[in-house]
């Protein structure tokens, strides 16, 4: 839903010669500035600096959801702070990879990408950068997730086949498109 409807910002600060380019600090700052200018609230509070070796304070942040294939790219961005370098390790999700500027990145192998969509025909990764309450998931009455198992006795006179299935009803929805952008990038 987000890939089809959210506004897009191409990464343009990289040097791989494609459009969009690989992600860079200037691209992170570009989408951050756009969200700030649109009065989007950050979602996560800052993490204060502490006197611990190898740590750095983390700014209050928007969330950025991306594909696991982007982890190497993120690690190469100037200013990247891996999550193990956060001053505090409390309330950090396993799916978090790190932070750059005012973005904290969460990765999943189910992350969004668009095949053959760059100017050179490369895969484009969609990183959804969101402020607070930018989009929502609306559950439908009487249509919460249901797991349905029917033993073979219901199949027919010979009771040959069991069936398993699930069903649910839900509606994703952008609440304010100004508070969410798709930061598109390729890999270097």
């Amino acid at each position, binding site marked *: 839903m987000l*890939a089809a409807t959210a506004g897009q910002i191409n990464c343009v600060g990289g040097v791989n010669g494609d459009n969009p380019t690989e992600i860079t600090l200037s691209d992170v700052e570009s989408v951050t500035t756009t969200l700030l200018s649109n009065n989007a609230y950050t979602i996560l509070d800052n993490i204060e600096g502490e006197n611990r070796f190898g740590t750095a304070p983390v700014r209050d942040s928007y969330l950025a959801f991306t594909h696991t294939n982007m982890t190497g790219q993120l690690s190469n961005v100037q200013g990247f702070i891996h999550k193990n370098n956060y001053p505090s390790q409390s309330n950090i999700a396993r799916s978090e990879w790190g932070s750059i500027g005012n973005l904290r990145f969460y990765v999943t192998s189910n992350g969004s990408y668009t095949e053959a969509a760059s100017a050179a*025909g490369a895969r484009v990764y969609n990183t959804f950068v969101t402020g607070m309450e930018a989009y929502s998931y609306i559950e439908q009455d009487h249509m919460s997730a249901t797991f349905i198992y029917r033993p073979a006795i219901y199949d027919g006179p010979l009771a040959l086949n069991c069936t398993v299935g699930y069903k649910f009803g839900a509606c994703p929805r952008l609440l304010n498109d*100004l508070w969410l952008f798709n930061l598109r990038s390729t890999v270097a």
Partner: protein
Amino acid sequence: MAFGTLLDSGYFIADGSAKILPFVQGVSWIKLVNMTEAAAANASHGVEYFWQPGMITNDCLVTMRNAAATEMNTTTALALGVNGIRLVDTSIIQTPDLTRTPTAISNAAIPVVSDVGCAAAGLAAGDIVRMYSTLGALQIDGIDFTVGTVNANDFQLAHMAQIVAAAAPGASARYVRIPYDSYWYPKHRYISKVRAWPTDTTKAQITLTVTHGYQIGQKVRFVVPAQYGMTQLNGLQGTIIQMNVTDTNSTNTIIVDIDVNAFTAFTFPLTAAVPFSPAMVVPIGMDTAEALAPVPPLPAFPPYDILTDATKNIAYRGLILGAGITSPAGSVNDKIFWYAGTSYGM
């Protein structure tokens, strides 16, 4: 029964383009009969078609009349070099299904892409194509375009603005066909042109690169990067009050209630501007008042559905039938019957 479980049956009148038959639960076989061709006795035209999983993608069995139209022969779409039948699942990642090499892109009012044999390769009006690495016209790369008129050796980027010609796009240049559109509705679209609407210059006319599918009354927001010039439009939202009014070359347009007269002109970037972000329209909601009581004289009464902005997953699984005289979707005005089914084995 002979084919297992019958799933569904029906018929359609061919319009000369590929036909999509959706089967939500999947399909194991399909048989089609072109009744128009069955009665016409045209030499070398197809009459019956059969497909089941295991056949090569875009292939199918073809039963056609011989060159003398005196008897029926059996062959395959692959052997004939035409489009047959292929499975499609729009809920998965889009994978281009046709890759071709352009030899030139013109500076006509509607840009024309030269490609010897593109029509024979299966490209048809209404398809969506995406260009890559077109030296001299890099600004159109990675952007989807609906195809306009297709000739034997060239085709139009139907809704694109005039560009500086790319006489020799280069050895790396290519384009692909995108087999199906994004499966969420409504969806964003890229902008190719913006101007004051000549009929009412206090309104803006926006041309979109791919058939938009919007409805009157929908509210949209504009994302316009600096490279396009008209930065005053960036971030503004407008209500669609009319649509599909020709902009001289294209009818894939929307009219919104924004006065752009005082804005900097909208200009599609040139090749040297790459990389840049695309200018786009983002659907954001519905103007209920406009939908219920459209401003006269356009559009015609009755009012529109106030829920046409609702986000919907329109993904489907189904079969894409190729069009042509020996393909299952037939030729214009052919009446084609079909029945399809499932089986335990496949």
